């Protein structure tokens, strides 16, 4: 029951859940850059290095109003990771049946965002949209030979499980809140942001070959189980550099 799909799910869950672990450590950092007086005018520019749960990225920022309550940002982030020979017990502890999975995990997006500082300080509300690059492709097969009657069947003959999970909406809307300015008063600043993309129910492509073919019917189960996961959270820690006067 707790099958290979855990691998895929770990990836997906990783996108969702790992983000929860970071705010506590980043908040104090972002707090150091808040409440900076605005003396930079309405045409300031900045760049940011983003360390996010959706990858590492760069952003270009520009203030839109003289009071600097509105800031526009464009940029992207990206992270690819290959999971190799990940073992997973498809059977029980007493009678294990190991699957070996290989996966290519791509996280990332290219987006445009507007920061609104409603109180004129570092606190901000953010809205925007992004083209989602996130995609998980995985392939798994039995680690050991299996028996049918007295016939020893090697893993290659048993077949493979192929899965791909990706957002159903390519251009995903985004909302978030944060602390810190994309264009700091000083030359360098730090900001923190937490938000979420709406990407719709994930698209699941799932197929199995050869003797595993009956498992293909589990595509519906996977799709149903993943369908509530329509939001992709993003936590980001940004190092911001002002590039205008």
């Amino acid at each position: 029951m707790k099958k290979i799909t855990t691998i895929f799910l770990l990836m997906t869950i990783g996108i969702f859940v790992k983000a929860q672990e970071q705010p506590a450590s980043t908040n104090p950092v972002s707090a150091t850059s808040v409440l900076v007086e605005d003396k930079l005018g309405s045409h300031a520019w900045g760049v940011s290095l983003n360390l996010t749960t959706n990858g590492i990225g760069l952003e270009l920022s520009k203030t839109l109003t003289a009071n600097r309550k509105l800031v526009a940002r464009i940029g992207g982030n990206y992270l690819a990771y290959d999971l190799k020979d990940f073992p997973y017990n498809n059977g029980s502890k007493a009678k294990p049946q190991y699957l070996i999975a290989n996966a290519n995990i791509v996280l990332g997006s290219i987006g445009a965002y507007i920061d609104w500082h409603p109180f004129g300080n570092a606190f901000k509300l953010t809205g925007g949209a992004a083209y989602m690059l996130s995609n998980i492709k995985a392939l798994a097969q039995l680690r050991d030979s299996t028996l049918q009657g007295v016939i020893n069947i090697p893993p290659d003959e048993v077949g493979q499980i192929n899965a791909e999970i990706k957002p159903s909406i390519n251009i995903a809307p985004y909302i978030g809140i944060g602390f810190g300015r994309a264009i700091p008063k000083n030359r360098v600043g730090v900001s923190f942001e937490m938000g979420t993309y709406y990407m719709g129910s994930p698209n699941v492509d799932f197929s199995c070959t050869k003797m595993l073919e009956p498992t293909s019917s589990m595509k519906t189960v996977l799709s149903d189980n993943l369908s509530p996961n329509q939001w992709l959270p993003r936590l980001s820690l940004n190092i911001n550099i002002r590039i205008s006067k």
Partner: protein
Amino acid sequence: MKIYNSIKVIILTIGIACITSVFYTCKNPIKDFKISIKASATTPPSTIQVYDVTTNTRLNVDPAKYPNGNVPITISGKDAYQIYTPGGFQTFSVSQGQILISLRNGINPTVDNPIEFNVNIDPDGYLPITYPIKLTSAEPTNFQIGMVSLSNLPKGSTVTTTAPPVTIDTVTKKTTTPIVIKTDTTNNTGGTPPPVAIVTVPTGTQLQDKDGKPIELPAGDTATTLTTELVFFPPTEQALNSFPGGLETSNIQDTSGNDLKEGTLAPAGWINIDMKIGNTEVKNFSTPIVVNMEVDPNTINPNTDVPYVEGDSINIYSKSEGDENWVLESVAGIIKNPSSGKLEIPMSVSHLSVWAAANFSVSCSTRFTLNLTNDDTENSSNFLICIYTPSTSNPLAKGNLVKSAFITVPAGANLSTTTEFNNWKPTAGRKYFVQFFEPGNQTPLQSIGPTELCGSTPPSYTSTPSPNKMVFKVLIRCSNGNSVLLPAGTKVYYVDNTVYNNMIVGTGNAQHKVDPSDNIPGNPWQTVIAGVKSIGGTNFNIITLPSTALLAGSNYRFAVYYDTGVGSSGSREDKLFPEMVNPSQIQDPTGLTGPTLTAAQLESYRGAVTLIPVTLPTCPF
């Protein structure tokens, strides 16, 4: 300033609440997820039907010795190691009248590189049989092995058990008096006096064991008894079904062991002889003994197409127990017994085994080919092809059925097949009828013949789309709830349940409600081949029936056969459908195309994972 801070807190709280809420929508992504491994390490199985030639149903065996009627068998021969049950085991049995055999997936026998093995069946109460099988394709093929019950012989056949006295010279180890044994016709079931056979062991014959060593009597003894069992078969329809190894054979050798041409044997009679002195079996003789077999006056000589007459020649063959080959021993001339006035075949018998007098027709050098075209681009079409040899008295008699095959032609496809007929080669110069049936319909779609099939244009048939078809979705479930796709060639059987409940066949311990595998006239089970259709991206098995196949107001029983994975105990799984209201009005809730569809589920919850086909010809004659 206080209000200002409060607003900040509220906004912050709402924002965090909104974002964190998404984390709690996650559902366990692998909930209810199951991995299923299809047991398909073996090829779709071929079916060997084993039946009692007298009753045409299951073997009537002692249930105390053979629980559930399952008779263990052995597979021997050079390729026996390549034979498996569909479940991948190498322990075989006859179960519900059939044996299922598969090859390891990836093994593809051909005409030039066949898989050859022998099926050995030796249940109590039946004559043992060694049946050679040659697989020339990995496609499912059908074989039939008829067995002879010693307590219920085929019509016209006789069994004689006797123990005449025998005297043996202590020095020469030779018989000192002639022994004459005549078959006992009082126990025959034929109604009219059947032909008889007379076995004569001349004076001066050494009776030898299997190693050729003379059998000696205990010291001081000069006389004993020769325990003898003779089973004599004139060529009646029932008896011909039990002809050892089948009438079509490529397993004929000369006495030097050279293979002879393949072809068809037309026996005029055969005899199985067993002799014992004490506990020692007599297997050989120093000089041949003589067996005179009477010839039924109606037996046709295939060389002349008229009944045998005095002076006709006929081949004499022998086949030892456990051997797959017939050996051409000699050629005999038919004589007329001056005292009885009857025709007899004198056979010179050098060892004890099965001996047959038969003429032989050489097969065509090319394999039989059939062309089928399905003009229906929406549905596959199923055909039942029946090939008969015509006879003057009854052109389409059941006994004249030579070959039959169920063939599924995919939608819009042309099919030219030889493998469906197991690469059969018709007899050169012989004429045949070829009939095309839609399964479930006794009226042929087309009849061809009588015509020669050797060297002629292959018979062909083109089907056209029928507006009156019903397509059923067939869903097979295993015990874990997963559905299973039927292997290619799987047969689905259906029968009017009232007819099924009222038709009891078989005798003694083998009495049962009629099976699809019962080779009896008027077997009400109908057969259809399951196809595959993609519905919503998932492949399902479907069966296509003519709308006339099911009657409103009747309950129908549908069945498939499973391999339970234990030995070869394939068992039947039935599903009884609710009463048909009006089959032609059934609507399809599944999205299958066509005007008369329904989604019927044929469900089974056995632990089986491999479905197996049972393939029996149900040609109407």
